């Protein structure tokens, strides 16, 4: 059994920032990362980040990951375990993890921060189980993390930021992007990303979705069609593409199973991506020693995830009795940054979602 002050699950942008903040306050931290590399989704983000200086704006995601890791390495009281998956939490507060990809280990932490991130949502349509129908994030991993050209000719389903960014990165990898489509009548992602694709000659079809994927043994053909106002396909509007990959980028869903196992009270909030924990404004859940940060608390940009990680790290340190003299200043800084990141048009959906999930404070 490992006894530790703070267990952090997930070494993505939120988990790394949480480890840095709680570690700086003096907590002994065990940071679990199921992948063999830390950084979460940062490691495959080759584009420059939005936000402002405090959230490393203009840096590319994989560079931000290196910066955060260097900070973590300076803290001897923070142990980062790779190939380590949190498996379960039991009624007596004991957590189980698979360490080094094989050995079953029990952990008794005084406090826990869940920063497990999110998974890609899927969509049901004829032919969606053909080889060649992939999540856009999976294709991005194959391409940017492992250096494998994933396809020759791609149709992208989804014009949110992931669909737009992965399409652009496919073009950078020398892949032809035949079309980006989205069921919504408006482009959901940032319009600067859309403009980058359009001036490369990639069509963006709003109010369009996939009717069918087809092929002998693997994807060969994608049929798109226009949707009416009730989001139903309009016969006669079909467009047929000869593609070897169809990327599905229809949103993310918080990976919140551990929170549910832990008995945290949950709520389904559509604008936050699915089931998320009730939490106070400082990211404490209904279980007093469990905190959350990043996409598992609601789907947002990585910039917000980093600030939330820092805030959860501060909250957990305070819970452990490790408040530093500048605690209030740091916490106020986090709150101000989050408020600012969520204050614009793009933040309206997030704020309406948070209104349903944030209680007390």
């Amino acid at each position: 059994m490992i006894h530790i002050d703070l267990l952090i699950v997930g070494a993505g942008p939120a988990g790394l920032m949480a480890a840095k903040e709680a570690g700086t306050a003096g907590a002994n931290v065990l940071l679990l990362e199921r992948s063999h590399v830390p950084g979460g989704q940062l490691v495959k983000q080759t584009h420059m980040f939005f936000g402002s200086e405090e959230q490393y704006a203009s840096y590319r995601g994989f560079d931000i990951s290196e910066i955060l890791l260097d900070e973590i390495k300076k803290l001897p009281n923070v142990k980062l375990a790779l190939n380590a998956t949190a498996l379960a939490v039991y009624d007596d507060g004991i957590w189980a993890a698979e360490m080094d990809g094989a050995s079953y280990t029990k952990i008794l932490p005084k406090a826990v921060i869940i920063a497990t991130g999110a998974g890609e949502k899927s969509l049901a349509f004829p032919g969606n189980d053909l080889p060649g129908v992939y999540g856009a994030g999976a294709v991005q991993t194959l391409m940017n993390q492992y250096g494998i050209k994933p396809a020759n000719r791609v149709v992208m389903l989804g014009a949110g930021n992931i669909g737009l960014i992965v399409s652009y990165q496919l073009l950078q990898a020398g892949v032809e992007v035949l079309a980006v489509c989205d069921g919504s009548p408006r482009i959901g992602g940032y319009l600067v990303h859309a403009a980058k694709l359009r001036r490369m000659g990639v069509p963006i079809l709003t109010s369009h979705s996939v009717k069918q994927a087809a092929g002998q043994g693997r994807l060969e053909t994608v049929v798109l069609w226009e949707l009416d106002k009730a989001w139903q396909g309009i016969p006669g509007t079909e467009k047929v593409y000869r593609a070897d990959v169809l990327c599905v980028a229809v949103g993310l869903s918080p990976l919140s199973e551990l929170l549910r196992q832990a008995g945290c009270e949950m709520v389904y909030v559509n604008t936050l991506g699915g089931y998320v924990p009730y939490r106070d404004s400082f990211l404490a859940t209904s279980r007093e020693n469990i905190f959350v940060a990043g996409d598992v608390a609601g789907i947002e940009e990585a910039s917000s995830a980093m600030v939330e990680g820092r805030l959860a790290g501060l909250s957990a340190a305070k819970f452990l009795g490790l408040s530093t003299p500048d605690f209030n200043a740091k916490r106020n800084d986090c709150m101000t940054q989050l408020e600012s990141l969520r204050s614009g048009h793009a933040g309206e959906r997030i704020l309406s979602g948070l209104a349903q999930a944030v209680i007390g404070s």
Partner: protein
Amino acid sequence: MLEKTGVPTQSEIESVFPSDERLSKGPVAVIECFQSIPCDPCATACPRGAILPFADINDRPVIDNDKCNGCILCMTKCPGLAIMVVDITWSQDRALIKMPYEFRPLPDVGQTVQALDREGTVVAEAEVIRVQYNKSMNKVPIVSIAVDKQLVKTIRNIRTICDTPTTATHTAIQEEAQDTGIVCRCNDLQLAEIRALIAKGYTTIAELKQMARLGMGPCQGRNCLPVVVNELSRALGVPVAELPVGSFRPMVKSIYLGDLAGYEEQGEN
């Protein structure tokens, strides 16, 4: 319109272009940032204070064209690649456009490339005058091209390798009536099967688990449940938030029984 097409209209482009008078005075930045998003590096990047400080991170950039001298610093900091620099004084008949270019191979100086408009249509040829790329540039190469002055508001991209983009066809393909799409990959459940079960009255996650092993495979519901809760919501006319939630038990992923059986309490460490 931009929200539907991703292409700014002519009046939107005009709204961010400096006046003809300013253009005639030499290089100047043009920022095509039409949407309020939380992002401010352009304002903090400008050493001359030409991009006015933001009161709110969601502000759109406002540029003081008299202070801007067309240096490329803001271009290398803009995550949206929304900035270019134009100089219509570059020669008698040609203007110089500097733009970020994140593709390989980078063009060679002197090379003739295709000049594209904001929809990716080839509108002219352009000569590559300069390619800037060094460590201080944030991994953003800047390519300078010389183009016909008349096209300075039209050209927004280049293409170095010329190929013909493929378009959609209208060839009919075989409809497969049986296939409604897989919802649960672990247990091979089609959307139609889930809908049939719901129609028979199995209207909770727990019942669907018992009837069809939905969510009980290696993914533990991570793939199928977001789809199924929306199907239930639609069929029952009840918001997802009001549906009963299924139970979640250890483990969150498959592990070997041998790993569990081989577990020994190591004592304190």
